[in-house]
């Protein structure tokens, strides 16, 4: 990597350039461009069907862009499969929690950890001391994250039995195992009680202070406004407004589209 591109990557971690995603003839995401700096928290709001989650899927790779370009750290990742994007440090959570329900909370985190050697079939039977130590380190790391997320109490509970809010936290914990540099949170507050929302916000801020960038999709506008440095409002697949949270939410076009002009 040249010196010039390194400097550029410092300014923009993630760059989405004119991305379009089609479902049949329908443009779920239509020519969307955005940029995310390191340690930035970008909020995305918009009505249901505005294309927010599809945009996430295009960025994370579950639904590759049909047109446009996505770069992460200066590398073109438009055609890179999701698991490799995650290894590069670009991870996501899901709108509807997708915990591994038959695994315990602790195992959920361990399953996410990068452990290519230990996860080989042969090593289920022949474990070297080095692998056992590595597994122990990962277990300790998972315990640290559970403590950070206030989930230690449910460490050995099967994740399928948790509340909606706890599942959201487990998902956050899972992606933290990957030492990510950019986390996409899809509706982290949906179905979560207000106390827990505050807690999730605090954790996100702490992680941001440690150097992780976030894009957060959320319908809970007050919480999103308080959390974001910058906001984007989407409507019918396009970006309607972009800027600092106050200005964006006061924009008449946003009020028209998002709240039907009532507010």
């Amino acid at each position, binding site marked *: 990597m040249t010196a010039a591109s390194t400097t550029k990557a410092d300014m923009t971690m993630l760059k989405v350039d004119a991305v379009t995603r089609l479902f049949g003839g329908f443009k779920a995401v239509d020519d969307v461009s955005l940029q995310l700096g390191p340690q930035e928290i970008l909020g995305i709001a918009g009505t249901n069907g505005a294309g927010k989650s599809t945009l996430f899927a295009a960025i*994370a790779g*579950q639904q590759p862009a049909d047109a446009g370009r996505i770069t992460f750290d200066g590398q073109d990742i438009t055609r890179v*499969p*999701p*698991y*490799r994007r*995650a*290894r590069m440090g670009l*991870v*996501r959570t*899901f709108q509807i929690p*997708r*915990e*591994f*329900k*038959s*695994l315990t909370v602790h*195992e*959920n985190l*361990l*399953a*996410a950890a*990068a*452990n290519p050697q*230990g*996860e*080989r*079939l042969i*090593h*289920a*039977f022949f*474990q070297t001391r080095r692998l056992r130590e590595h*597994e122990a380190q990962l277990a300790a790391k998972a315990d640290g994250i559970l403590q950070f997320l206030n989930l230690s109490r449910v460490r050995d509970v*099967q994740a*399928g039995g948790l509340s909606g809010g706890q599942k959201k936290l487990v998902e956050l914990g*899972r*992606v933290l*195992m*990957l030492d990510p540099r950019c986390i996409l949170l899809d509706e982290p507050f949906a179905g979560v009680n207000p106390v827990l929302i505050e807690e999730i916000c605090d954790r996100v801020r702490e992680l941001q202070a440690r150097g992780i960038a976030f894009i957060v999709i959320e319908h809970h506008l007050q919480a999103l406004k308080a959390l974001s440095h910058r906001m984007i409002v989407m409507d019918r697949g396009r970006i309607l407004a972009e800027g600092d949270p106050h200005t964006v939410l006061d924009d008449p076009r946003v009020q028209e589209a998002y709240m039907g002009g009532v507010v």
Partner: protein
Amino acid sequence: MIAYLCAIGVIALIYCLLALGLNLQFGLTRLVNFGVVAFFAVGAYTSGLLSLQGAPLVVCFIAAGVLSGLLALPIGLLSLRLRDDYLAIVTLGFSEAVRITIQQESWLTNGVQGLPGLPKLFSSWGGGVSDIAIFTVLAVIVGLVCWGTVRLTRSPFGRLLKAIGDDEAALSALGKDPARFKVQVFMVGAALAGVAGAFYAHFITFITPEQFIPLITFYVWMGLVMGGSGTVRGAMFGSLLLMVFLEGSRFAKDWVPGVSEVGMASLRLAAVGLALILVTLYRPNGLFGGSSK
């Protein structure tokens, strides 16, 4: 009577081995393999044909496992694109294709005539003793596979298999490539079925294509589902229970008047079906699968 019990025991253990293989594929990883019997057949024929060429039985058994495992590779690769019911249809079709191929390619497999006169395991020890020896060896192997499954389930590899079973897309969003794990577990399960086939061939000593019909696959599934898929206990006890029931109901005709031999066979299947429905309704995790997750 001991000879009879021993024979039932060997067949029951062969079903256990098949169920343990399916347990890895379906119980842990949720891969719907409706073609268990195909790998069982390939194992039986591989071992049978090699033994007729004079190969030592140990070599035949290893070849049966290896070839069945390798045959699972293309199916495993297909399973990367196909999920759930589609994979079920493909594997079911595959197992019928294997059976019909065996039936048609008589230059190799002797077609519908089958392969008579296969060497029996431990035959030099005499009839009764050899049966007991086969039972013992098979029991040891089944025991080892049980131990291996438990070990696997608790390993990082097994953890990923369960994660794939729960939510494959979420796992790949976490930087894991589920493909490799799915193919591997498919091949391991198939290799176990292949070894089971070799035991079958060298116990029965006569194999024909019509022994390898999809009903065998469904017996294995019934055993696993009734016992409780995902656990060794469920796979083992479910298969044993099914065998006890299938064999036990042979004697039932003495107490059910007015039912012919053929009628009894149909009744038996109906009863197994009813039991399966009841278990699914009232014990969805199987009889030995533990409490609800």
